[in-house]
């Protein structure tokens, strides 16, 4: 059995009196692409927030590379190798794609303990090269100078993904990476995600609605229903699972 | 109010024009002799500034009608010091480099203290018309700054002396003292006076209680009033001022505080409290820069009141108006005496100058630039007049009998109980 990268044990989380996650546990092994699915309100986003450190669970623990990170603030998780994108792409709207990427690269440098003089106006050529390379990676080289707010939605999502890759994460957490995309864009971004994760040997956790995307990427599926894991395993196995068919695919 | 303000605006506009238009040298020689009037024309202290302005303008008009000084007319160059040191220094330095070396006005202590070094460095002269700080002729004495009115020691010791004379049996004293430097100083001086004059004049040793410290600039004095209610004193010295004083006495009425004292003496509110509270004013002695009734028959005073009433429809100006008036006359006399408006000569001739004012003759003490004048006190009582109050007694205490000897450069020292 491969090494466990991220492990969540008995997560409970509720807003006020309403419980959202009830005793949720899941593991992500190095190299796998783990997709969490579930109908709206199943608690996918909340689970996602707990794993990334945006929220802390009311009970249970999160372990990364064997270390307890349950209450580690998000920025420290990011420095340890979490890479996270948002359902609605979040980038620095008033900066060009290049500047966005530069921020990510410089932050990554700092996280690695490199000293960047606060007063340095322009990045070193090394960083410049890295920025260019990343933009190339996500296919935005030709839009480097475009201000983020003027980028097409799909491009913005890819920019965000690229910025996350700049951190050279060991685990990539994508919240509905293709939400709001056209079919063709979906296809493209699935390929992109598959490519980069494979190239850099990045493990993947994502929540998704679109079944095409799910079965295109997943090496393991976890099904969340009303805040509980009702099935987890090989995609095909899950697909055959009676309860899943009943509660989940029934909804399709 | 509106039309006065517009008129002020026009006047100062003209002054500005005069200041700007005339090339300095020429102005110095033939044009009007310009005198800087630096005083608050905005912010909370504008109220005081308005009296200073009117008083000075009246004096200038009077002197100009009489042919001016050394044949030259006087012109005021007015500046707003916002009762703020930065604005005051900026105004003073502007006027000084513009050739205006003689200044009056400034009633804020901090501005006065801030202008001391400026006047010294840039060879100017300043006559303050009501700044209360004792530091100006002690720790922070400079030969260029004069006070032509009451010094805090003359004022508060004069009040203590009067108390010892009039009320020999009132020997338990307390104070209602705002918790700032000026308040503490006036109390210390008043106590010093009690300790000197009760034994000397009443043959009794006064008993001085801890004063009740009052907050300032607040809406509620009831807690402090309650503390005062816990004391049993016969005499009370009030140093709270203006709006605070009115708020305090108004709230004290509900407690019946003032009735507990046989006598209440107020440091410097003149008619502020009386005008504010009308028939609700507590009966009190209060210190005045100038009380017209007390100076009836002094032609200068009578004429001042006539002109002031004509100018403002107000027959009972606050003392600052008289101070400004006296300051202008002091400058005029000193210039005439030395036949020169140069600072050096003016300072020389101000020192030791005796000149006539609305309060009678005053003398500027050469050692510390402090005027010696009589301390004027009035006793105010509620009355069913249309003003709601009336003055039932007034006295002048001889300034020489109460003022401390000069000690420029040294801090004041007081008798302690």
């Amino acid at each position: 059995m491969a090494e466990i990268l991220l492990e969540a044990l008995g997560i409970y989380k509720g807003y006020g009196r309403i419980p959202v996650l009830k005793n949720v546990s899941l593991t992500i092994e190095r190299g796998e692409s783990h997709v969490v699915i579930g109908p709206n309100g199943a608690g996918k986003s909340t689970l996602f927030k707990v794993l990334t450190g945006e929220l802390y669970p009311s009970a249970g623990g999160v372990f990364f590379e064997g270390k307890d990170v349950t209450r580690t603030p998000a920025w420290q998780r990011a420095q340890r190798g979490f890479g996270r994108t948002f359902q609605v792409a979040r980038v620095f709207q008033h900066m060009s794609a290049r500047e966005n990427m530069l921020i990510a690269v410089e932050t990554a440098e700092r996280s690695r303990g490199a000293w960047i003089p606060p007063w340095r106006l322009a990045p070193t050529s090394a960083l410049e090269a890295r920025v260019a390379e990343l933009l190339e990676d996500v296919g935005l080289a030709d839009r480097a100078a475009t201000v983020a707010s003027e980028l097409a939605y799909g491009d913005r999502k890819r920019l965000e993904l690229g910025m996350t890759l700049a951190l050279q994460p060991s685990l990539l957490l994508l919240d509905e990476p293709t939400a709001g995309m056209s079919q063709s864009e979906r296809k493209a971004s699935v390929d992109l995600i598959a490519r980069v994760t494979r190239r850099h040997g990045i493990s993947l956790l994502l929540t998704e609605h679109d079944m095409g995307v799910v079965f295109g990427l997943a090496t393991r599926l976890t099904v969340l229903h009303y805040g509980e894991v009702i099935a987890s395993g090989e995609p095909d196995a899950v697909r055959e699972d009676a309860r899943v068919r009943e509660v989940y695919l029934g909804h399709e | 109010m509106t039309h006065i303000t517009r008129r002020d605006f026009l006047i100062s506009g003209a002054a500005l024009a005069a200041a700007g238009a005339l090339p300095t040298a020429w102005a110095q020689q033939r044009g009007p002799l310009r005198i800087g009037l630096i005083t608050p024309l905005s912010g909370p202290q504008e109220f005081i500034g308005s009296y200073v302005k009117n008083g000075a303008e009246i004096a200038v008009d009077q002197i100009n009608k009489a042919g001016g000084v050394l044949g030259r007319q006087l012109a005021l160059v007015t500046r707003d010091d916002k009762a703020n040191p930065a604005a005051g220094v900026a105004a003073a330095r502007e006027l000084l480099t513009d050739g205006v070396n003689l200044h009056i006005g400034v009633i804020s202590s901090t501005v006065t203290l801030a202008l001391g070094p400026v006047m010294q460095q840039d060879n100017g002269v300043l006559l303050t018309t009501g700044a209360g700080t004792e530091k100006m002729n002690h720790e922070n004495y400079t030969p260029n700054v004069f006070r032509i009115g009451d010094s805090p020691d003359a004022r508060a010791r004069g009040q203590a002396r009067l108390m010892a004379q009039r009320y020999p049996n009132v020997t338990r004293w307390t104070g209602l003292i705002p918790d700032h430097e000026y308040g503490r100083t006036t109390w210390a001086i008043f106590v010093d006076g009690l300790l000197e004059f009760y034994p000397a004049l009443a043959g009794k040793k006064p008993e001085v209680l801890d004063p009740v410290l009052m907050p300032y600039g607040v809406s509620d004095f009831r807690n402090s009033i309650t503390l005062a209610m816990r004391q049993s004193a016969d005499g009370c010295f009030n140093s709270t001022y203006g709006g605070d004083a009115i708020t305090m006495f108004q709230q004290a009425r509900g407690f019946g505080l003032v009735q507990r004292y046989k006598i209440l003496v107020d440091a410097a509110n003149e008619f502020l409290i009386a005008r504010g509270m009308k028939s609700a004013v507590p009966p009190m002695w209060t210190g005045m820069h100038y009380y017209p009734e007390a100076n009836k028959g002094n032609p200068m005073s009578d004429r001042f009141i006539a002109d002031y009433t004509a100018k403002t429809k107000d027959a009972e100006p606050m003392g600052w108006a008289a101070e400004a008036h006296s300051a202008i006359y002091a400058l005029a006399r000193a210039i005439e005496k030395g036949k020169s408006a140069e600072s050096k000569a003016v300072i020389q001739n101000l020192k030791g100058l005796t000149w006539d004012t609305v309060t009678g003759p005053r003398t500027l003490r050469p050692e510390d630039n402090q005027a010696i004048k009589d301390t004027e006190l009035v006793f105010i009582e509620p009355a069913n007049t249309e003003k709601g109050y009336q003055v039932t007694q007034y006295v002048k205490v001889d300034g020489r009998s109460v003022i401390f000897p000069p000690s420029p450069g040294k801090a004041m020292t007081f008798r302690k109980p």
Partner: protein
Amino acid sequence: MMPAEARAARNRFLATLLCVVVAGAIFPSVANRGLVFIAGLLWINVVFGLAFNLLFATGGILSFGQAMFYAVGAYAASVLSLRLPELPFLWALLVSGLAGAGLAVVAGTVALRRSEGVYFAVLTLAFGELLHIVITKSTLLGRNDGLNGIRRPVIDIGMLHLDFSAGDAFYYFILVVCAFLVGVLWMVTHGAFGRALLAIRQEAQRAEFLGMPVQRYRLIAFAISGAITAVAGALAAPWLQIVTPDLARWSNSTNPILFTLLGGSGFFWGPAAGAAILSVVFYTTRTLAGIADLATGGMLLVVVLSLPGGVLGLLNAVRQRATRRHSGTEAADG
């Protein structure tokens, strides 16, 4: 921003700064000393405003307590010059800066728990009032009377012996130090740290998930602003030769905000322009008895309502329209 552009931007800034300094340097020879005094205050106010705008425009933090840093600096310099006259003034400046930074860290750690807009403003305002009370109650700081008789310094650096105690010599010292501080602020704003702050301002959560310690960065920005403001205050003390507790009050905290909004927060030089305009306004209204409050208030309202981009924003718009019309006519001609 390509390195070439970076260099261009830096040179543009240095050129502007040079012009300002030169103008400032020749000013005393053409203006009366009242104006020179006001100009001295103006340079200090320029720093006061720019340090605020580092927080506001770059950091997205609205501080309503800048006066406390100004006051801490002014009082630190005053106490040092009165109690330890032998301490070189440059050291006094340094200590003042550190005091400002220290205070900023203390106040910031509390206030940044509510860093969103007006909450932070109110909390910082409260801290300013607290400091004001502390000053009025402490004898070392001269209570309500403040501290006066603060002498202007004589500075010895190695061979160099500079006497600023006489006349207006200290004006030039203010000018130089302020130019230096403006330079520092420009670097902080446009350098890597400024970039990070700007990113945080635009999308704090994204920045956080990139691994930025967002709150720490905000605190650092607050400390830098506090330190620089305090040094500005320390320069004001010997220039005024008196410091009073009012320096710490919220009425003083409004000043840098006025400068910034008046000049235009979107421009690095905005607060400087605003400070200059306000000085001119106050100088020209200094004799308007009775209506100074109305005039100031009215003018502010007009600016806030009709010039959200500030005066520089207006000029910018005008220039752009001009160029557009120009190119338009060219097109017509061609």
